[in-house]
C-alpha cells in the first residue's frame, strides 16, 4: 500500500484518540471499581444492576421495619414482665386469703393491695412507646384503659377504649408480621388479648375487681372457688403473651440476620455484574499507557526520518 504524507499523522491522531478514550474508560473503572456507569456501557448489566440495587434498597427497608418492630416488641415485653410480677403477687394473695384463719382486717389489707395492684396493672396497660399506646390496638393515640373508683377508693370498673386490630409490617417480600397485641380482644378472631379474651376466659381486671370485692366482704369461699382459678387463668394468659413475645423477638432476630445476609449476597451480585476486575483493569491501563507512548515515539521517529529527507535536498 502506498503511504502518503498525511498517513502517519492521520493514523497517529486516530490511534491517540482511541487510546485516550480507552485510558479514560480504564481510569474510570480503576477509580470507581465499576465496569459500567451509564446505560450505554452494558445495557443488560445496567438493568440487572439497577434491579439488584432496588432489591438492596428494599431489603434495607425490611431491616429498618424489623428494627422498628423489635423496639416495639421489646417495649411490650418489659410491660408484660411487670404485669407477670403483678399476677404472681395476685396468685400469692389468693392463696393466702383463702386461709380461713385470716382475720377480716387481714383480708381488707389484701383488698387494699389488690386495688393498688389493679391500678398499677391499668397503668402498665396504658404504657406508651413514643406517643403511641402499646396495647390499644390501632386506636393507639388514646389510653386504652380507664379506671373507675367509688368514694372509698375501691375500683368499680375498668373499661377498654382500644380495639382488637393489629397493624402489620413487611419484614420480607410479601411477608408481613404484627408484633402488637391488643389489651382486650372480644371479637373472637385475631391476636389474643393481654387482659381480656373471651376465647380463653381471660378477663384480668374484672377478676381483680371481683377479688377485691370478695376480700372486702370476707368471702373466702368465693376467693378460693371463683377468683383463684379465674386469676390463675389470667396469669396463664399473661405467661402466654410473654412466651409469644419471646418467640416473635426470636423470629425478628432471625429475619434481621437473613436481611443482613441478603444485603451481603446482593452486594456481591452487583459487584459480579457491574464491578471491574481490578487486576485486569490495571494491567490493561498500563498496556494502554505503554501503547500511547509507543505510538508517540514511533511517529516521532518517522517524522525525524522525513526531516532527514528534507535536509538531503540542499546537499544534492
Amino acid at each position, binding site marked *: 500500500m502506498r503511504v502518503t504524507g498525511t498517513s502517519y499523522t*492521520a493514523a497517529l491522531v486516530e490511534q491517540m484518540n482511541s487510546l485516550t478514550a480507552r485510558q479514560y474508560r480504564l481510569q474510570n473503572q480503576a477509580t470507581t471499581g465499576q465496569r459500567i456507569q451509564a446505560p450505554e456501557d452494558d*445495557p443488560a448489566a445496567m438493568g440487572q444492576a*439497577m434491579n439488584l440495587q432496588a432489591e438492596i434498597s428494599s431489603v434495607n427497608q425490611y431491616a429498618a421495619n424489623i428494627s422498628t418492630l423489635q423496639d416495639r416488641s421489646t417495649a411490650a415485653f418489659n410491660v408484660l414482665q411487670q404485669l407477670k410480677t403483678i399476677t404472681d403477687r395476685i396468685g400469692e394473695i389468693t392463696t393466702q386469703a383463702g386461709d380461713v384463719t385470716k382475720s377480716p382486717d387481714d383480708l381488707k389489707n389484701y383488698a387494699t393491695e389488690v386495688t393498688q395492684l389493679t391500678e398499677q396493672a391499668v397503668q402498665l396497660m396504658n404504657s406508651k412507646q413514643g406517643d403511641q399506646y402499646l396495647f390499644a390496638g390501632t386506636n393507639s393515640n388514646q389510653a386504652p384503659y380507664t379506671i373507675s373508683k367509688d368514694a372509698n377508693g375501691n375500683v368499680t370498673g375498668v373499661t377498654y377504649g382500644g380495639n382488637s386490630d393489629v397493624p402489620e409490617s413487611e419484614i420480607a417480600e410479601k411477608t408481613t408480621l404484627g408484633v402488637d397485641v391488643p389489651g382486650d380482644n372480644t371479637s373472637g378472631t385475631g391476636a389474643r388479648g393481654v387482659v381480656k379474651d373471651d376465647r380463653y376466659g381471660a378477663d384480668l381486671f374484672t377478676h381483680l375487681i371481683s377479688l377485691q370485692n370478695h376480700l372486702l366482704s370476707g368471702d373466702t369461699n368465693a376467693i378460693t372457688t371463683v377468683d383463684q382459678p379465674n386469676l390463675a387463668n389470667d396469669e396463664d394468659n399473661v405467661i402466654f403473651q410473654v412466651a409469644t413475645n419471646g418467640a416473635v423477638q426470636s423470629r425478628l432476630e432471625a429475619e434481621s440476620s437473613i436481611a443482613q445476609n441478603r444485603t451481603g449476597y446482593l452486594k456481591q451480585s452487583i459487584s459480579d455484574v457491574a464491578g471491574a476486575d481490578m487486576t485486569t483493569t490495571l494491567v490493561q491501563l498500563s498496556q494502554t499507557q505503554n501503547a500511547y507512548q509507543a505510538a508517540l515515539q514511533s511517529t516521532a521517529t518517522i517524522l525525524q526520518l522525513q526531516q532527514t529527507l528534507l535536509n538531503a535536498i540542499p546537499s544534492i
Partner: protein
Amino acid sequence: MLGLFGLLNMGARSLQVQQSGVEIAGQNLSNINNPAYARQRLQVQTSLVIPTALGPEGTGIQAVGIQQIRNSLLDSQIASESSVGGYWNSQQSALENAQIQLGEFFNQAASSVDSSATAGSAALSQGIAAQLSGFFNSWQSVAANPASLTARQALVNQSQGLADSLNQASQRLSSLSDSLDSSVNTDIGSANQALSDIADLNKQIAIGEMSGGTANDLRDLRQQKLEQLGALVNFDASTGADGSVNISVNGTQLVSGQQVVDTLQSYNAGGGQLLVRTATSATPLTLTGGSIQGTIAARDGALKTIRDQLDSLASTLVGQVNGIYVNGYDLHGNTGATFFSGTDAATIGVNNTLQTDPSLVQAGGAPAATGDNTIALSLAQLGEQSNAALNNQTFSQAYDLDVAGFGNSLSNANNQVSNYTALNTMLLNQRDSVSGVSLEEEMTSLITFQKAYQASGKIITTVDEMLQVLVNLKT
C-alpha cells in the same frame, strides 16, 4: 536534422517541461495536508518527430497536461458512506445527550450508603430508579410507624423528590426533542447551501473545462461538497455530459447541471415534530441516511420511546397509588383525597396540602385509628406487585427495563459509529494511497526535475558553445 537552432529550441522546451514538473511537485507539496486535494502529475510526451535522411528524429519533450490521480469508485463510496456516518453520528450524539438528561447512572457506592441509612433514605441517590425505591420504602416506614409525623414527612418529601425527578426528566427530554428539531432545520440549511455550492461548482467546472483539460482543483472542491452533503442527507448522483454532477434525493431531483431545481424544507407533519420535504414541489421525502434522518430517527425512536415509557410509568403510578390511597383515612379521620396530582411524567405532583401537614396523609384504613396502617401497607406492597399496564412488571422492574432498552439503542448507535469509523478510515486510507501526496515521492520528483533542468541547461550551453565555434570559423 534539427540544426543548432532546432537543438536550442529542444533545450528551451525541456527547460519549460522540467520547470512545470517542479511547479506540480510544489503544488502537491503545498497541499500535502489538504484532505480534499488529489495529487497531480505532469503528463509529458516526446514532441514532434521529424523525418530525416537518417530516419525519424525526435525534437525533445513537451508537456501535454496535468493529470489528477483519483479513483472515482472510492470517491463515490466515501460520499455514500458519509451518509451512513452522518446518520449514526447524529443518533449517537442525540442519544448520548438523552442519556445525560435522563440522569440514570449506576453508582455502586449508593448501595453502601443506603445500607447504613435509616428507612426511606434512598432519596440520597438522585436517579428515578432510586427515587422509586425510596418512594415505596417510605410507605413501608409509614406502615411501620403509622402515627409518626416524621415518617409521614419523609414520605411526602420522598414522593415530591420522585415527582420532581420525573418532571425534570420529562422536561429535559422534551427540550432535547425541540433541540433536535432545531438541529434538523440547521442541517437542512447546510444541505441547501451544499446543493447551491455543487450547482455553482458544476458551472465553474464546465467553464473551466470548455477549452479542454480538467479543472482539477474545482473537482476536488466539488468532491468535498458532495461528501459534506452526503453526511447531511443520502442522495443519488449522476454525471452529465459536461462533467456536471446531478443530485436527487429520494427520487426527486434537486440539482440538474448548473441549476438548483429544488431545495429541502422542514414541515410539521403533526404533533409538532418536523419532517423533510422538497420546498418547491412539497414532496415529502423518505430519507434513509445522513444526519438529518439520524436526528429524526433518534427523536422519533429511542428518545420518544423513553419519553412515552416515563409517561406510562408516571400515569400508572398516579392511577394505582390514588386508587388505593383515596380509600384511606388521615390522622384526623378525613378521607377521599388523592395523593398524586397530574397524569404523566411532566405533570405528576404531590397533593399540595400534604406538604404543609403530613398528618393529612391517608395511611390508615379506618377513621380514628391512628395506629391503623392498612393503606400504607397496601401502598408499600404495591411496589412489589406486577402491573398489567407495565407489561406485568413491577414499577422498578419496568423502569429498569426501560433504561436498559434505551441503553441498547445508544449502545447500538455506538457500535454502528465504531463500524462506520473503521470502514471510513479504511476507505480514506485507500483513497489516500491513490490520491494522497507522498512527501518521499514529491521530494524525489523535485530532485528528478531539478537534475533534468540542469541537464537541459547543459544542452543550451553546449549549443551555445557550438554556435560560438561556428561564428568564429569566419575569422
